């Protein structure tokens, strides 16, 4: 076993991990069940997380690689009482059906909007690329990200 320390959604964790444990399995063991295990080999994207600002697939990251890193899952974004604009926009636009791929889509979109406050359709498609959705056909997620971007720009203008 290898001892690691990492920060998940702002909280510090010290854990012993087996060398072949993936970050995906560690997160699920620690109760972050929004991180989904679909294919487990880097195809489906349902395990997407943000690690040190980079959106990545946690099934391809060994748990020990997360030592000293900051990891964010969708639990960090908001909840039903206080949703993040992206979460609200996904609801408003009907972008969620079964919901399995949505946590990672939200995180991918969050990274995009942190770098680009008014993305084009192509930029949204590229940011969400690698997150397979078998329900919706992707159109509504693109509309939702655009709507969230607008909501966030307006919020910022109101704050100024």
């Amino acid at each position, binding site marked *: 076993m290898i001892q690691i320390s990492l920060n998940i959604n702002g909280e510090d964790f010290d854990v012993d991990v087996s060398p*072949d444990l*993936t970050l995906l399995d560690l997160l699920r063991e620690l109760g972050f069940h929004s991180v989904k295990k679909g294919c487990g080999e880097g195809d489906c994207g349902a395990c997407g997380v943000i690690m040190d600002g980079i959106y990545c697939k946690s099934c*391809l990251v060994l748990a020990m*690689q997360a*030592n000293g890193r900051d990891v964010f899952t969708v639990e960090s974004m908001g909840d039903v009482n206080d949703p993040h604009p992206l979460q609200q926009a996904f609801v408003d636009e009907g972008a969620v059906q079964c919901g399995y791929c949505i946590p990672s889509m939200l995180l991918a979109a969050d990274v995009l909007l942190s770098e680009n406050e008014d993305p084009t359709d192509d930029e949204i498609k590229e940011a969400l690329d690698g997150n397979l959705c078998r329900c919706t056909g992707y159109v509504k997620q693109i509309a939702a990200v655009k709507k969230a971007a607008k909501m966030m720009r307006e919020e910022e203008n109101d704050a100024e």
Partner: protein
Amino acid sequence: MINVEQYDRPDTLKEALELLAKEGAVALAGGTSMSLAKNPSWNSIVDLSDIEEIQTIEEDDEFITIGAMVTMTEIFRHPGNMPCSISAAARAVSSTPIRNMTTVGGSLARSVYWNDLPVALLSLGASVGLASAHERRRISIDELYTSHPSKVLKSGEIITDVKVELGKYKTNFIKLARTHVDYALLNVCASLEVKGNVIANARISVGGAVNMARLVIPAGELLSGQQYSDDLFIKAGETAAESIEYRSDFRVNREYQKAVTAKLVTRSLRDAWNNCECNETDGE
């Protein structure tokens, strides 16, 4: 993997190379193939992701040097003079989260048939910086690909960077795949050193349809020293299609591989000659 007892993430290359000199130590770059690997001979992992000196892209008047830990995303977002076929190959890699993780060094050292980036680097005649605890050396990418790169690297040796001459070639990269994120059915890169109306030197490389990225030397030789003509580009495509050994691929048959190689090598040569943008194709 299960026998790994130590994990280190050193800050300096020197420290990493000392750790890698030990028996059973393995370098971890982007990690996209590592978590799926089950190699019982590894007992320690040396994660290279905190070593700043191999994470930079540097340019001078003549060369661009790309550190081994630079990711595909960083390559195509680079604001400077990245050769377009390198940018296109980096962008052709899988999906955004994979491009955020995949590194230059990992793509070369762990070469698999579908790798996009090595095809562009071969065509552009890159040189590759290597380092171990005992030695620093620089070899041509042709030498790295005389066998599988992992066999050309000595024990404890890692790739530190790739270096490409700027402005030497007109170049074009094409990926053929069923969808953007699918493994390449065929990758082609054509690079032409042009003097007036004469092709002084041509380097054509392929991947995807072969076991490992490789130069197609007979097709390049056919063009080198010749005056430009479109017929010559068609002939070079046909020569390339005849001269490579195809891997068997359940997605397509041999006739298709051959036909599409001829067409796309010709297209890549035309687009390189005309300075057209690099692109992807679904075979239409």
